[in-house]
């Protein structure tokens, strides 16, 4: 449902069914609502059978990359001779995205169940649930839920009486966007600086503490119990035409829109429907100007592009952007695009981990150039300089943070060049004072 | 006449000394009223028509910054490039941790005034000068120390600029 708004008829409510329902937060409340059935079922299955079921469902990673989850699980070594780990990525720090937060706040046991099933399926000794430091409320809810789950025997040495051990440990981040990157997250759990690691080795070979590790997003894991309960075929059928993108997807919509919030839709729903019908369209008297469809790291779409797009992994790519974490930032015609692109660049400059040269220096320099344009001192050469810099920042670093910084800048220059020109030509009042 | 001496008759106009003298005098007088090209050197150093080239490479000068300290940071490039090996440099460090020349001496006797030191200097500190009056009472005075180099006031040379080969 479109928390904090009532469910819209065009939504397909699966994960978000109990958003806003405080009763679902407790163990008993969750069991009443059909909880822990899937875990019980899973613990009775073989590990391979669970992986096959998830593979068949077509579930893809909801964190941004969209990698098939079942396939990811199948990469884990079968023979458990050394510890394996599962890491649940609850470091939702992509600007524009706030879906995992609601899952943890309202349905913590759904996530615990999903973690437990995944941990069992990949043979993980322990699941680390990495919650970002700023999520104080989800942290409290999750801590209480995990404690209860242990107390009720759903977790621990003898999970739900199956004789199998499932452990979940909560780990709190401390304010670093980059820790949402899977290898950086592993470093962070290990007590290191959250620096992304170079791949290979991939986490499934040498991940957390050097052991085989799988990392899944909160939304992905929360979907797993539903797949086991209702079957892969049901999940696969939740699809509007494109068989590569199946299931439901939570969309966070924010910015200049009537009803910001989370909406759960079937993959393949037209973006136009989501923006105008579910979220209520632009504020009165306004029109949309730009939409960033997948959290701040993806190329900006113009209104026309967004309205033409279908909402699934491939549909958004067709229109020149990416689905990412499905955090839609909507900007209407009052928005100063140059200022917002500068604000995004500043975000990346602040969050760069300082490892790769292109990212460390490039994000900061990009910010400075945009700052200069905003103070009215920009030059025509700055376009070329920005594009050169962004080219240098794309595809050359360990992780994709610098690519993420380049994406809005490059797409912004391509699609909203006139606004940059206005600052450079002095036709527009500087948005910033020269410091 | 017993022997026949042939007497040549010369034209009057060509043998008259009066005429030649007058001619010479005329030239002399003419020069008295023409502009003079001689410069009264020690009293007079240059004239509007004649002065030494801005590209002249003479004895050195060390430039100083606003505080009167030499601009030299003792990087060691000038002694390195000097073909005559006439620059002596010992670097030191002041209280602020800045590198500066503890000893900087140029032996102007050995110097071949190639100007490489000026060309190589990254700080634009050492310069060859537009200067040619080098008389001294002792040979030792031709080893210019830092103080001496800094106290020179003559113009510094504008080296040949490869991007403007014809220019002065």
């Amino acid at each position, binding site marked *: 449902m479109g928390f904090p708004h009532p469910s819209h008829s065009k939504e397909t409510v699966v994960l978000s069914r109990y958003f806003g329902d405080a009763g679902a937060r407790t163990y008993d409340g969750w069991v009443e609502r059909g909880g822990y059935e899937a875990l019980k079922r899973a613990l009775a299955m073989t590990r391979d059978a669970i992986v096959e079921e998830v593979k068949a469902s077509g579930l893809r990673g909801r964190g941004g990359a969209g990698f098939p989850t079942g396939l990811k699980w199948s990469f884990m070594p079968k023979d458990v001779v050394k510890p394996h780990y599962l890491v649940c990525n609850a470091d939702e720090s992509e600007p524009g995205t706030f879906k995992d937060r609601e899952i943890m706040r309202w349905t913590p046991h759904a996530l615990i169940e999903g973690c437990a099933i995944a941990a069992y399926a990949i043979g993980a000794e322990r699941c680390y649930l990495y919650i970002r430091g700023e999520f104080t409320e989800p942290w409290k809810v999750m801590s209480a839920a995990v404690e209860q789950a242990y107390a009720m025997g759903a977790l621990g040495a003898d999970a739900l009486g199956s004789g199998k051990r499932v452990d979940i440990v909560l780990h709190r981040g401390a304010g*670093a966007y980059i820790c949402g990157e899977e290898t950086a997250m592993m470093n962070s759990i290990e007590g290191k*600086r959250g620096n992304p690691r*170079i791949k290979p080795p991939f986490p499934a070979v040498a991940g957390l503490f050097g052991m085989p590790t799988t990392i899944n997003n909160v939304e992905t894991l929360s979907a797993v119990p539903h797949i086991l309960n209702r079957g892969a075929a049901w999940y696969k059928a939740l699809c509007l035409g494109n068989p590569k993108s199946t299931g439901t997807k939570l969309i966070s919509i924010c910015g200049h829109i009537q009803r910001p919030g989370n909406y759960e839709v079937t993959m393949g729903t037209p973006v136009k429907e989501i923006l105008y019908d579910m979220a209520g369209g632009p504020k009165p008297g306004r029109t949309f100007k730009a939409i960033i469809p997948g959290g701040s790291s993806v190329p900006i779409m113009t209104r026309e592009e967004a309205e033409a797009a279908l909402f699934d992994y491939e549909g958004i790519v067709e229109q020149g952007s990416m689905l990412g974490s499905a955090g839609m930032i909507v900007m209407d015609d009052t928005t100063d695009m140059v200022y917002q692109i500068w604000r995004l660049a500043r975000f990346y*400059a*602040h*969050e*760069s*981990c*300082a*490892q*790769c*040269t*292109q990212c*460390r*220096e*490039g*994000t*900061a*320099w990009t910010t*400075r150039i945009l700052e*200069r344009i905003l103070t009215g*001192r920009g030059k025509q*050469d700055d376009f070329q*300089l920005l594009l*050169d*810099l962004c*080219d*240098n920042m794309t*595809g*050359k*670093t*360990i992780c994709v943070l610098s690519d993420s910084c380049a994406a809005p800048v490059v797409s912004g220059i391509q699609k909203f060049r006139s606004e940059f020109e206005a600052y450079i030509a002095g036709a527009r009042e500087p948005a910033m004072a020269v410091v | 006449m017993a022997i026949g001496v042939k007497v040549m008759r010369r034209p009057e106009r060509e043998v008259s000394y009066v005429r030649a003298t007058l001619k010479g005098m005329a030239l002399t007088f003419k020069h008295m009223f023409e502009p003079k090209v001689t410069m009264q050197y020690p009293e007079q150093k240059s004239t509007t028509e004649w002065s030494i080239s801005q590209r002249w490479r003479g004895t050195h000068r060390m430039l100083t910054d606003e505080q009167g300290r030499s601009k030299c*940071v*003792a*990087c*060691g*490039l000038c002694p*390195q490039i000097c073909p005559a090996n006439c620059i002596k440099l010992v*670097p*030191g*460090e002041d209280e602020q*941790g*800045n*590198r500066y020349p503890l000893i900087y001496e140029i032996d102007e006797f050995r110097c071949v005034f190639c100007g490489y030191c000026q060309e190589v200097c*990254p*700080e634009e500190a050492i310069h060859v000068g537009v200067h040619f009056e080098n008389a001294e009472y002792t040979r030792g005075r031709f080893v210019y120390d830092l103080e001496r180099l800094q106290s020179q006031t003559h113009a510094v040379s504008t080296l040949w600029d490869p991007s403007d080969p014809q220019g002065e």
Partner: protein
Amino acid sequence: MADELVNVTIDGMPVSVPKGTPIIEAAKQAGVLVPHYCYHPSLPSPAVCRMCLVEVEKAPKLMPACVTSVVEGQVVHVNSASAKKAREGVLELLLINHPLDCPICDQAGECELQDYVFQEGRAGTRYAEYAKRYSPVEDFGPDILYVPNRCILCTRCVRFMEDVADAPVLNVSERGDRAYIGISEEQKLDHAWSGNVVDLCPVGSLLSKDFLHKARAWDLDKTASVCPGCTQGCNVSIDTRDDVVIRIRPRPNLEVNRHFMCDYGRANYRWMNRGDRIEAPLVRDGARHTATDWDTALARFEQVLRGASGSAVILATGRASTESLGLVRRLVDRFEVAAAVQVPLGEEAPLSGVPNLALRRERAPNLAGAELLGYTPQWAAAMRQALSAAVVIVLDADLDQADEAALAAAPGMVVLLGTVIADALRNVELVLPVTTMAEENGTYVNRDHRIQRYQQAKSQPGMARPAWWIAGEVLAGPGPSADAPSTAAEAFELLGERWPVFAGLGHGDIGYTGRVLRTGSAPVPGRAEGAAR
């Protein structure tokens, strides 16, 4: 090597390298240097500088050559347009905040940033209108300064302290472009091997206080040598300017010290520059010494040896070369001999990340060589015997005052082959000036019986000669003789006649990385391939 070989083509040059070799090392074999900052063969590679990006055919994007292993049939282009453009981009970014202070930077001339920018960087800056980042110089430890402005955050220093020295006292602090190399207020960079971070630093960010402003890199003459500090025998380069030793730096030898040397060895060069040297042979003429020529002095030496009978004692410095120790030992073959080398002792300081590498307790570089030549470290016993011996040869040993006084009063003939002379010994029979290890060619045998060569780094003072030359001349007899060795290599060949362990071996065989002697005894435990992790 039993490893499987992989064939790759790098910039058109086919090479075969063991499986698992990173592209950067394979490229070296193909004669192509891939520019790099964070990569170092003796450190784990984090691939953060992104300087070594190369184009690999069929790869979707540029690959970091330092962590990408070669694959059979791979075609790599180090100097393709895209790789060059990427490197130019990295250099531009590294330079935006890098000060233009090469003129006052100690690293200038051996700076990798300077080199690569000169090689393939942009000619101009596009960052002109901004102020550069500025932070003051920090004091990291007894011999190390940190200049944050020059730092390019390659993290070699951090990784050295963490992974090789196993003492993580350096960190990367902050993040983004605010990042810098940090140190705790409570700990200093005073590890026994910390000086290596200065060498590892590709730019002039970490500086040695000892070397600060002393010389420009291009002024220095570098001589391949062996550290005279301890029995480890680290390969070093002695850097001199105008015949003055300015610094000692490690020279890579993967079997001995990889790329490192300890701070003790680094600082142990001042004695090489000592000024109060004996410059001419001195013979005793009544109550005083007279300077003389070598012919006279050598004749007197021979006379001393011929005239004496009974026992002879050799008191040698641990820094004497194998050649000198051997030939001096041969001088007294007809005597009953007690020969000792001096071995000062100190604290052992291992470098934990490299197996079998430490600053050793025994601070004598040629202890093992001396032992092979019949010397012992029993200094006190030899000293006692010296007081009753017929001939005592002191070979540059560092004597304490009591020993000097005792020797001066000893009944036997005392011949001093030395570099300096103590007042107490002003009355010995014969004083012959010898060179130090910095002033001669020679060999040392380290604790693992690896024999290694060192080269002459500076000229000898006055008439000083290597001790092997003196001994060789005396052995060959008076007058000009073809038998006397005229080079250290010839002197070395004479050793084989008497000590079979050196037989059949010449300086040419030893090369510049040394060679393990077949001593018959079991190899020293832990003497594996000196691979770091």
